[in-house]
């Protein structure tokens, strides 16, 4: 019986991972960006690039989201909100930092209202550089993040440690 239970649990995990990879829901959060990356994310969702063909859907609520797409260096006002939104997301959760500012603060490094990149506030799983990255780069980055979740490359217990794997994406 124990063996069966284990088998069942493993199968369930496999199904969950399969579902997650094939239809991740993303949330977009602007933590102080110039809009450049944000419009490129939106462009990636519209017919020319059509991110939805990977099953990716933009959601408005953090409670429904698997992946958090962050743009911009973190401003002092947004740092707490970013943390709160991250905490509201269900496990397992993944964070993609999009654009130079989200990686390091970019051109705004040293501005008094900028704390730094996203990773200063929350853990980041994938980094997509560029000012702003092209929609193709965003799609590539998200796709690489999804690929890294596939069972062959990843343990089946996704929430065994707090923040998931760090899949560095260079595109």
């Amino acid at each position, binding site marked *: 019986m124990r063996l069966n239970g284990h088998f069942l649990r493993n199968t369930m995990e496999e199904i969950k991972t399969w579902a997650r990879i094939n239809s991740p829901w993303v*949330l977009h959060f602007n933590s102080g960006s110039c*809009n450049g990356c*944000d*419009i490129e994310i939106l*462009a990636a969702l519209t017919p*020319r690039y059509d991110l939805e063909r990977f099953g990716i859907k933009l959601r408005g609520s953090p409670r429904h989201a698997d992946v958090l797409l962050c743009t911009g260096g973190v*401003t002092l006002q947004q740092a707490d909100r970013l943390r709160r939104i991250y905490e509201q997301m269900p496990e397992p959760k993944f964070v993609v930092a999009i654009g130079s500012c989200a990686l390091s603060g970019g*051109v705004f490094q040293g501005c008094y209202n900028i704390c730094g990149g996203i990773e200063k506030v929350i853990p980041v799983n994938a980094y997509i550089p560029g000012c702003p990255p*092209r929609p193709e780069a965003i799609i590539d980055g998200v796709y690489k993040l999804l690929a890294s979740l596939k069972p062959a490359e990843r343990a089946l217990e996704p929430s065994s440690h707090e923040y998931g794997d760090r899949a560095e994406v260079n595109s």
Partner: protein
Amino acid sequence: MESKRQDERFIIPIGPQHPALKEPAHFRITVDGEIITNAVVRLGYAHRGIEKATESRNWVQNIYLVERICGICSHIHATAYCLGVERLAGVEVPPRAQTLRVLVAELERIHSHLLWLGVAAHEAGFDTLFMYSWRDRETVMDLLENVSGNRVNYSVNLLGGVKIDIDNQISDTIREGLAFLEERTLHYLDVVSNDMAFLQRTRGIGVLTRSQADVLGCVGPVARASNVPRDVRVEAPYGAYQQYPVNIVLVEKGDLEARFIVRLKELLESYRIIREILDTLPPGELTTRMPRRIKEGETISRVEAPRGELFYFIKSNGTDTPERVKVRTPTICNMLSVLKLAVGHQLADLPMILAGIDPCFSCNDRVAIIDHRRKSPEIWTWQDLRQYGIEYYNGHSR
């Protein structure tokens, strides 16, 4: 906190996060039943401290900094800055460079207005129009990429000129793209002025009279939709706009429909200017020499961004860094009009009224409705509010 208020008055905080609009802001909306009675805004979620940062970077580095104030109107920010610094230095920019600046500025206006059309249609629940206009927007993004090499931060401006040049091949590509866009724009103009379902959400909503627009200091398409002739390209032509005069687009009604029509007609005007530029692009140099230190002095540089008048005040103290750069973006002028407009309207109209001014700050996602009668806070997302608006109008066909 507001429990002493009358029974049916609720405070609704909105913001600061939303996927379809771009930058974050926070609104506190007081409603009496369905009717908005007060609206207060809190900005600064994307405040980075750029004005301070300009003081520690040199004149050239600042071009790249001001270009990143806004990703949608990056070129016009850099243009305003460069025009101001060139005037301080007493440098005359070659005509070809000035014309190319206008060319890119008009292409940028096309991209920005099409982007807005999509976002505003999305707020009305008209997602088909959203997808179509963003598909067509990719055409102009391709043109911009063709001209400058970048999709968003074009980095076209230099102090004393431009970096890019166009040849006959690129001109032909632009003409082809414009022919397609013109056809589509005429179609959209037909949709926004004749589609009955859409007109229900726009006609007579958020009316801003001429005198209100004047007193509130509205700028750009919002002012022009209320018949206030305020367009820096016409009033105070800068750069090559003296050679390529703009016909001002004015609409009288001042409601949301008028704002759609103004922006779409401006698209047609932009196509005309670009074609004229391509036909008569003056030959010559692209850059001129700029001194590294800029003479002491102050100047004011005003340009017409897609959203309205952009205002730069630049003060030099004779060194290689500016003493002060003050930026006044168009949204801050129009924002007050939103707060005034919203009062007296249905809560359901709020998303459209907000989108109507093309806010460059508004990333509203979480809406908390605090019902003091039941004393149970109820969290709404922006999507819920948008959905509420759509369903409200489905049930109340007027």
